[in-house]
């Protein structure tokens, strides 16, 4: 995999090194990005992609090495320097001001003004233009706090293209988008490309980069493994470069595990704001997938089951007996757990130790008479940290300092500690590297084999098709399709996923 002849590198990184205490984030990385190309950057979590982006955006400064940008030495000291030079990034974490309007957010750095006052008419006109471009049908005056995650992502993109930039960096832009929105995003990328904008595209979804990228660079442990033209490589080859080893089948499925009796049954569930009711059941030993578009009510449904949000109606049956779940406490007592889609803000306590995060679901088990037995707690968490192969320096390490994949494993560990019987996982592999994903799939298979019932909500359709026994498809707040594993078919699932919205247009 040799480097291409350099046509006209707009960005030229030479022997870039960056380190943090105990970590060599980037190690002598050379990278030449040509003008007007879409350059994909891939690698496992912790491979150094984000560090590289933050370096280009002036958030970090390299320890050594040199960056040439447009033929001149480039060393931004702040994000503002980078924007002024013409490099902009859309990060995985959103930088939006919740209480301000969409328009104000997009043009926050350069609000159009007239004699010192904000010129709202121009602001809203230009915003409407941009919203059309990214395919968002909302009013410019909508407060950002009312938007869903996917919409926020599109606002970030609109913000990034609101000013002309030479290089646009997109960090996992599709993680929260539906296939339709992704298509629109790709159209925007291609349009920018024809305008001569260079795109640095970071994604875990390898299929995507084959659709959109011209070249791909693979990073591993802070080192560059290689750069190659996208048409000269295949997905398995990229994966091999990323993990440095041969991967087995991408989705492990335990064909020997057969679902048995019904474990949890949901009858007539209505979450707030939804007129439709939802009924389904999950069996012991079963991995039940829930597919559907973002906003189709999947998250709301599982949150209502868990008691995280109030429900308008519905009854749960556990092993045939009716149970009352008014809040998460009830759910946990009945052995039902939820791994929320937002693991950082809802699943973990980032500034506490791994052990504290793991034992919080059943702290009584690690205490005697109200006093925590620190030795017991440490031993119990160590057992789970080892079982789940969580890469932490010790169980006392703060969860904040773990990679995304390891953080997700800590969330899993805390519910294993509780010995939950029904595991509901909402987007458990979002933003997680291939290696960690695979380990999570294996673990879910193992848990199903042990007799647990597993419900998994995911926007990654191949993932659901790979690991589930059965799949429900949500569309506009109701279940529009149910498929057994032998009937899994991508097109059919998508058809079901859109069906609720089509029906509405007809009436």
């Amino acid at each position: 995999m040799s480097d291409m002849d350099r046509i006209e590198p707009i960005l030229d990184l030479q022997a870039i090194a960056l380190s943090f205490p105990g970590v060599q984030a980037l190690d002598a990385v050379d990278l030449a990005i040509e003008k007007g190309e879409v350059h994909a950057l891939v690698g496992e979590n912790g491979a150094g992609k984000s560090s590289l982006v933050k370096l280009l955006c002036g958030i970090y400064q390299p320890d050594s090495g040199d960056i040439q940008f447009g033929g001149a030495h480039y060393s931004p000291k702040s994000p503002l320097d980078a924007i002024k030079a013409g490099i902009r990034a859309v990060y995985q974490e959103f930088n939006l001001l919740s209480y301000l309007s969409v328009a104000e957010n997009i043009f926050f750095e350069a609000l159009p003004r007239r004699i010192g006052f904000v010129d709202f008419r121009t602001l809203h006109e230009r915003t409407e233009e941009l919203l059309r471009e990214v395919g968002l049908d909302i009013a410019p005056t909508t407060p950002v706090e009312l938007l869903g995650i996917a919409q926020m992502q599109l606002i970030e993109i609109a913000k990034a293209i609101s000013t002309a930039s030479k290089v646009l960096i997109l960090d996992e832009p599709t993680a929260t988008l539906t296939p339709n929105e992704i298509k629109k995003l790709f159209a925007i990328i291609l349009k920018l490309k024809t305008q001569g904008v260079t795109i640095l595209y970071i994604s875990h979804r390898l299929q995507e980069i084959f659709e959109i990228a011209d070249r791909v660079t693979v990073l591993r442990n802070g080192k560059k493994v290689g750069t190659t033209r996208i048409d000269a490589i295949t997905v398995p080859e990229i994966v091999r470069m990323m993990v440095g080893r041969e991967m087995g089948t991408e989705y492990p499925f335990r064909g020997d595990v057969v679902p048995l009796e019904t474990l949890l049954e949901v009858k007539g569930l209505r979450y707030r704001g939804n007129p439709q009711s939802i009924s389904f059941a999950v069996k012991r030993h079963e991995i039940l997938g829930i597919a559907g578009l973002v906003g189709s009510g999947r998250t709301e449904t599982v949150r209502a089951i868990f008691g995280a949000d109030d429900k308008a109606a519905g009854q749960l049956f556990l092993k045939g007996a009716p149970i009352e779940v008014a809040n998460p406490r009830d759910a946990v007592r009945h052995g039902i757990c939820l791994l929320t889609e937002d693991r950082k803000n809802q699943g973990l306590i980032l500034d506490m130790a791994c052990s504290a995060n793991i034992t919080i679901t059943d702290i009584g088990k690690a205490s005697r008479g109200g006093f925590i037995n620190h030795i017991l707690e440490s031993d119990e968490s160590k057992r789970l940290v080892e079982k789940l192969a969580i890469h932490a320096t010790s169980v006392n390490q703060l969860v904040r300092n773990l990679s995304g994949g390891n953080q997700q494993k800590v969330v899993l560990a805390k519910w294993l500690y509780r010995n939950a019987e029904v595991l509901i996982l909402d987007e458990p592999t979002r933003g997680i590297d291939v290696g960690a994903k695979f380990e999570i799939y294996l673990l879910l298979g193992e848990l199903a084999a042990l007799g647990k019932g597993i419900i998994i909500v995911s926007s990654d359709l191949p993932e659901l098709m790979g690991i589930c026994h059965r799949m429900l498809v949500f569309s506009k707040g109701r279940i529009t399709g149910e498929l057994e594993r032998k009937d899994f078919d991508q097109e059919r699932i998508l058809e079901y996923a859109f069906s609720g919205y089509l029906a509405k247009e007809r009436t």
Partner: protein
Amino acid sequence: MNTRRIAYLMLREVGIGIALIFIVALFVAFAPMFASFINITNIFIQISINTIIAVGMTFVILLAGIDLSVGSVLALSTIIAGLFLTQKSLPDSLVIALAILGAIGVGMACGFVNGYVSERWKVHSFVVTLGMLNIARGAALEISKARTMFRFPPEFDAFGSKTFIGIPVIFVIAIVLVAIGSVVLRRTVFGRIIYAIGNNEESVRLSGHNTRFYKVAAFVICGALVGIAAITYMLRLNIASPILGVGFELNAIAAVVIGGTSMSGGKGSMIGTFLGACIMGVLNNGLLLIGLGDFARQIVTGCVIILAVVLDTYRNKASKLLSQ
């Protein structure tokens, strides 16, 4: 536990401890009277009340709340205790027991109202306790008809000046409460959940805990400590008055903040709070001894509060580096 982790944990308290030693050293050098036995005993007595209230305040602030009503509630507690203590018809020991229970009970009741209202209706505790500040003060004035009460049972009046192996008994009460508070925070399930909620309430709720219970409980604990502080204050002054405790909330908050507890919750310790109260007390006492007037002392104290919080941001950066 590896050494780095211990260093990280120690950093907060050690930093405040060093600051305290530095201030003490300055006063020893420049105020000859400062290091005398009598003066040190004095400082102990002076910081006791604030320390006791600050122990309760630490629980509340660890949950990102605040209790502005502690000074007024203290006054109300002294009045309730005073009502019992001035009952001549009952035996002294019973009267004293009732006074103690009454003071703590009133404190807890006010704390419960503070906590419950702010939790039930999602009103920030700043507002609720600001209301309670007025309610409790008004109630104290109303019940006592704005009169000061005194002439309590002789055992009660005498107890305040007792010493325990040379240490004023009032200070011993404060130290014992600091120790209990520290153990509760560091060693118990209750303390663990308090820290966890302070860091990320939603996450704790979704882990299956009744976060509302803990948040209300923190205010009740704070109220109980205000009740104890009220009794302790009466042991020292031998009076009960509706105008006691004005501004005490600010001293307690200052001690907690100087002690390194974050106003946004989740970070801090009881030892830090105690050291914070010591710094406040030593400054007040020492500055007086070197001849600074009341006004100038206020200015210095104010500067120290701000300085402590600014320094804390640097300490946070350092501890983040160490924790990696």
